[in-house]
């Protein structure tokens, strides 16, 4: 196994603005890597750099061990799928699929073979002679994927490919993309701001902020062991509850509440006392019968109840602090009630208040 894409100390500035800062990233052969972040974090910029559509300011990019930092996009062995599909409106689907191959001066029969193969994989054979204007959003995105597919490349780049689709179609295509990856086993780099897409598709997720990678890891790691406050806050919906307090002798103290962190895996064997933040996911809070078995038990004042069908979201106050709890859809809780809750410190996250890093 080798690396498929390697990025070394990549810098990119637009004028005085540094968009990517000394960025390193290795992507394995056949890996599905998701670049996740809110808008302006540099994820699309990084993807465009890999594609060769943006000129880097410094650093190197390797694809399959070949230095492609200054190579033309078409010479890099990449295929790219865009958010707006970017189909050539005046060409038929067939024309769209074969445009790149014609530019590469491939023989006619080879072009036909590849177009037919891509069309069959994506089940768009009946659409081959239509223009993009006559296709639905989902069909267009399939053609766009097909355009990358025919190029027979090592690396697929996806720039928010599902963002323009409606919610239902997005789920369908997401599943199809995953199936496609299983079938083709190509390296795929996928940019999105949608954490559900990231969690479901990725082998590894790179959470980005301000041109830097905040955490690179499996979806499980990102969700359960966020490396810093930003990642913890960014991942999860509704987002994590944070309580600001102190870590003292292995106990987290906020106001007059004391939470012994028994079972919590500290990042370092010895953690000194310091101001800290505890993060507790709303879905990791237990209620009802389960409270009795929980290591930590508290009671909260229910402020507001949002039934959402499959679950119920409770906005409550834990002492003075706002606290969200996710219960199942059958929960019967009213605002004004006092609710007993249970927390398991081993599922919580602790962060240093100043460095914001995981403790």
């Amino acid at each position: 196994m080798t690396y498929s894409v390697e990025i070394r100390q990549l810098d990119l500035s637009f004028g005085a603005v540094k968009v990517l800062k000394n960025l390193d990233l290795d992507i394995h052969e056949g890996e599905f890597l998701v670049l996740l972040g809110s808008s302006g974090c540099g994820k699309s910029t990084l993807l465009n750099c890999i594609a060769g559509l943006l000129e880097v300011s410094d650093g190197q990019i390797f694809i399959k061990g070949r230095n492609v930092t200054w190579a033309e996009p078409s010479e890099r062995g990449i295929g790219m799928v865009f958010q707006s599909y970017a189909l050539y409106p005046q060409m038929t689907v067939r024309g769209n699929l074969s445009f790149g191959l014609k530019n590469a001066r491939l023989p006619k029969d080879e072009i036909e073979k590849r177009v037919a193969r891509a069309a069959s994989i994506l089940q768009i054979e009946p659409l081959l002679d239509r223009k993009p204007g006559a296709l639905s959003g989902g069909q267009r995105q399939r053609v766009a994927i097909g355009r990358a597919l025919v190029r027979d490349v090592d690396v697929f780049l996806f720039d928010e490919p599902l963002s323009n689709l409606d919610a239902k179609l997005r789920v369908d295509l997401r599943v199809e993309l995953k199936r496609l990856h299983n079938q083709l086993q190509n390296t795929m780099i996928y940019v999105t701001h949608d954490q559900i897409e990231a969690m479901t598709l990725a082998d590894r997720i790179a959470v980005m902020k301000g041109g830097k990678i905040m955490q690179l890891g499996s979806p499980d790691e990102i969700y359960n062991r966020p490396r810093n406050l930003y990642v913890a806050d960014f991942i999860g919906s509704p987002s994590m509850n944070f309580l600001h307090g102190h870590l003292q002798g292995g106990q987290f103290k906020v106001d007059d509440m004391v939470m012994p962190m028994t079972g919590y895996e500290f990042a370092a064997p010895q953690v000194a006392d310091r101001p800290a933040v505890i993060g507790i996911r709303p879905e990791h809070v237990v209620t009802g019968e389960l409270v009795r078995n929980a290591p930590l038990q508290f009671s909260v004042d229910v402020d507001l109840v949002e039934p959402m069908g499959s679950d119920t979201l409770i906005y409550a106050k834990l002492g003075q602090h706002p606290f969200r709890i996710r219960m199942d859809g059958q929960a019967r809780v009213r605002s004004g009630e006092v609710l007993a809750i249970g927390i398991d410190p081993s599922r919580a996250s602790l962060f240093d208040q100043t460095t914001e890093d995981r403790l």
Partner: protein
Amino acid sequence: MADATLHAGPRGPKPKRAFSRANIFIYGTLLLVSIYYLLPLYVMIVTSLKGMPEIRMGNVFGPPMDVTFEPWVKAWSEACTGINCDGLSRGFWNSVNILIPSVILSIGIASVNGYALSNWKFKGSEVFFTILIIGAFIPYQTMLYPIVILLREIGLMGELSGLVLVHTIFGMPILTLLFRNYFASVPEELFKAARVDGAGFWRIYFQIMLPMALPIFVVAIILQVTGIWNDFLFGVIYTKPATYPMTVQLNNIVNSVQGVKEYNVNMAATLLTGLVPLIIYFASGKLFVRGIAAGAVKG
């Protein structure tokens, strides 16, 4: 007014009844103003169809009692402009010979400019573009003589091709702006996709951008055809009598001091000169408005 239904078009409140006072005022005003706008056209037409004796009897606004096409024939093939007495036909063909290459050349260059400026930016490209746009606001008078020298140096002074060059140069700012804005509105991802597909500068221009930009080409053509056809200043300065465009010839026919003034011939000549842009105007409808709205920025 509570029952006023609001359509997608006009935004003002709907007048109540067909013959309300407001309605009479609106239509009355519009009709009155229409007379001001239509009157000259009407007068030109009726005058051009009258004989000189009838014109001398007065009443420019009266319809011709005795319709004659003699003035039109004379204006086209016999009217004198200085030395030549072969009518406007010479100017017409000069204008055509100026128009066609000017339109093609100016739009060709400007569309490539706009494409390069919006998709293939490089250090300094915006600077040159800014200079170009500022240039559009500089009065032509400050550049007239240097261009005379330039044309003389390359041997095109007085030639039709020299005037073509002048039209290409002075059409460049507005057309480049027009195409740049258009190509900037084309999704950038389309351009990126074509680059990933291995297409280069010219292939992307001809195969991706050009077919998409047809509407804006029509707008540019309307803008240039009317603009170049109606030009007088450049025509009078950069051509010689043999290569005068139609507008210059018209002015010479109408405002020549020698001979008896033949008003009917003058008006026929005027209409002939205005015919090409008028046809474009009525044939292109809404696109004309877009064209001039685009050209409106012209300095």
